[in-house]
């Protein structure tokens, strides 16, 4: 794309406020956005009433999130509305953060111009050497990256920062990377097919499936168990895990599957504890902390298990008391507007019982029980 065209599209991006999430951009596009930022800054600085322009950052706090309740489908997702927090140089306690944003943009721009990518750790070291006063710890880098994401509204990956994904997929899915052989995810063994952290690549994947369900699994070990047992051949399905709280890439991959195959229901298999529910909700709605990258990858995940109804299948000794951290997560979830009513009831039950149960507790009924359990839940429409 020629520079002028890029400029044009970048300018229109900043004036078109219908988009409130981070785009996956090419390095050229990101550089163009940074250039617009520089020009605007200089113009305002050199105007007859000179000023240091404030940085409008999309507000990433929960107070700025809203729930979009689907009318036709029962899908809902959160999005960030168009309110900003503002970074200003003129506020002494925020001035450093303001300069950090520009310093990071400078660094990213250099990296992108060189057509390189760095890890966040390398970025830290580079910044530590350039400006030790501004970036004494990794945390400062991480926060500033979020600011830049919220300012330029492009994904972290687009800024030239390498992302890795913990995501794995197995089951009845054929994946083809551009100019590569087709990978059959039924034949990847119990370790599955690793989801790349390169969102650009994920965007370009060709996907094919004959599955009837997508099953999102909280735990790697459960995923392995199901993959080892070839559960996807008995229940025609695609298995996905992010090994805990999902990363952007895994969520994006799931999002792509749900867009490519809109008729496939997605089931979530998580622990019966507040963290399990939070993981489910992160797949379903996104999370505020993921910043702008979170919300566009919402998927309508149904909660298959473990739920309060299943406690009869679990021996008492496998129920563990809730810990303070669990209660903290529960409290935070409770306060979230997003949480649908029947989820809220489940959470209330956990808190009232003061207990939690892990997915593995179902093994009490034998290692092959998990498969039967999934089948039973699906055919009984026992998901919420």
């Amino acid at each position, binding site marked *: 794309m020629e520079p002028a065209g890029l400029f044009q599209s970048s300018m229109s991006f900043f004036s078109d406020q219908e988009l409130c999430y981070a785009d996956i951009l090419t390095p050229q596009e990101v550089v163009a956005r940074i*250039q617009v930022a*520089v020009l605007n800054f200089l113009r*305002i600085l050199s105007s007859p009433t000179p000023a240091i322009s*404030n940085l409008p950052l999309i507000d990433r706090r929960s107070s700025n999130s809203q729930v979009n309740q689907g009318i036709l489908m029962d899908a809902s997702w959160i999005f960030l509305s168009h309110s900003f927090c503002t970074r200003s140089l003129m506020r002494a306690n925020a001035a450093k953060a303001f300069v950090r944003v520009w310093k990071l943009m400078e660094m990213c721009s250099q990296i992108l111009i060189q057509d390189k990518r760095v890890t966040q750790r390398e970025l830290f070291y580079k910044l530590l050497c350039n400006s030790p006063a501004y970036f004494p710890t990794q945390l400062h880098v991480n926060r500033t990256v979020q600011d830049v994401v919220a300012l330029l509204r492009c994904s972290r990956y687009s800024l030239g920062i390498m992302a890795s994904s913990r995501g794995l997929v197995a089951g009845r899915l054929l994946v083809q990377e551009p100019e590569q052989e087709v990978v059959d995810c039924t034949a990847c063994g119990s370790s599955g097919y690793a989801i790349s952290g390169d969102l650009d690549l994920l965007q370009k994947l060709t996907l094919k499936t004959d599955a009837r369900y997508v099953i999102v699994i909280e735990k790697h070990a459960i995923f392995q168990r199901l993959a080892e047992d070839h559960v996807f051949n008995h229940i025609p399905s695609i298995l996905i895990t992010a090994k805990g709280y999902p990363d952007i890439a895994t969520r994006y991959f799931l999002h792509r599957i749900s867009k490519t195959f809109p008729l496939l229901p997605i089931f979530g298999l998580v622990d019966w504890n507040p963290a399990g529910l939070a993981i489910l909700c992160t797949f379903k709605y996104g999370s*505020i*902390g993921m910043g702008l990258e979170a919300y566009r990858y919402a998927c309508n995940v149904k909660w298959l298990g473990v739920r309060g109804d299943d406690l009869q299948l679990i021996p008492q000794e496998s129920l563990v008391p809730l810990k303070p951290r669990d209660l903290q997560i529960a409290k935070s979830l409770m306060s979230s507007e997003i949480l649908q009513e029947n989820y809220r009831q489940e959470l209330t039950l956990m808190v009232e019982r003061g207990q939690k149960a892990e997915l593995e507790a179902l093994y009490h009924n034998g290692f092959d029980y998990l498969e039967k359990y999934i089948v039973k839940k699906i055919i009984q429409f026992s998901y919420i």
Partner: protein
Amino acid sequence: MEFASLQDLYQHLISSAIRRCICSERLCRLSVLLQRSPASDPPLVCISISDTGIGSCIQEFQDLKCPVEGILAETWDGVVYVRTTNIFDTKISCYQLNLKENVSTRKPIWLPSNIKHGVKFSGTEVCLSVYESVDVLLAEMNCFFQKNIAMEVVADGQDIPGSRNDAVFLENLPASSSFTASTLDHLKLGLEDYVLKHGSSLTCDSCFPNRDDLRSGSGMVCEDKHKTTKLVVEAAVVISEISNSANNCFGARCSDTEVLCFKDFAPCSISEAFLKALTDIDWKRYGLTLECAIDQRSHALLKWGPTPLSFHIHIAVHCHHKTRFDKKLIRKAIELALDDFKNKYAGFLLSADTLKISMFAPDLAKAIAGLISYSNDMDFKKECLAILGLQPHQSEGEIVEETIKNKIISAIEVNDQRPQGIKEVAPLLFEDGRRKLQFVNDECYKGGFDPMDFS
């Protein structure tokens, strides 16, 4: 009013004379004559304070109290001779009062009056005789007149044979100042004079060769809440640069600030309320860090910490028509004077926040200059230079960075000059925001714990 010392007494008498001069709203003359009787031992000195002000009434002296015992009692018999006339009087009244008598029972002894012979003038002369050395009195009075900058005083020198006399205060005012100027201007000019002389009678040429090296600001507050008397507080601020360290002048090297205080045209001692007013001022707004305010009787001393200032700041406050000091008005007046100063002189008295922010300017400029110079997009570079008002060939070197830095600093300083509270919100980098929420702090998203916050 009661006096503990001779100094208090004659200072009061001089201040009253000055007030009468000011009230006459005409050019007046005030003279103080010290005349020693050569015969007496210890030496008896006659102090004569005469003015061409509006004339006095007997009540002015009737209420003065003097202790029967103490130093004053030993040096002075309590007797004052007063000669006074108002502009429309046909004669000059003369009387004698013993101020050591009880106030309520005190009776003036009327002396024969002098006929004015139709000449229209007004004035007062007060005489008293004290046992005191002329040198001591002269030194004290010198000191008094040096500090008394709340008004312009012109004193004639009289050369009477056999007496020792001295011009205690003589000043050639610059052409710009005139007797028609407001009392606030007088205060400011007076403070400037005081600063030029470092508070000493000798003008120190090595420090402040001329008035142009001084920068000053002033402010005034009135309180007029349906009260009969209008309360007015005036304040003036003068800043002088601390000159090179080779200068021997002590006052020029110490960055502490003397705050002079006047009440109804007379110097006055420092009250609790006055000190409180000084400490209550938000000095940080002016880039100053007050360490402490000390009562030095004749003035308040402000000590700046932790690093001393790189310039002198001098402050004078004048309260009119006030029976007591109003903390808030004093504070407000000084702040207005400081604000006035800031608006007149960009880059001076910048707030602590602004100073802090300014320190980021070089880094910010470097980052933005970096973004320009690393770019391989020539159009972009050209456009940037154009906006900065630079020529295309100036793209290299540190000139871009320097230009941006200067622009940033000037924008920061302009921002600081805006009066507090109505600080204008700077434009957004991308002018598209519909709802601006609020400013975020450095660690902006620290507080809220989001359970789903695990990106």
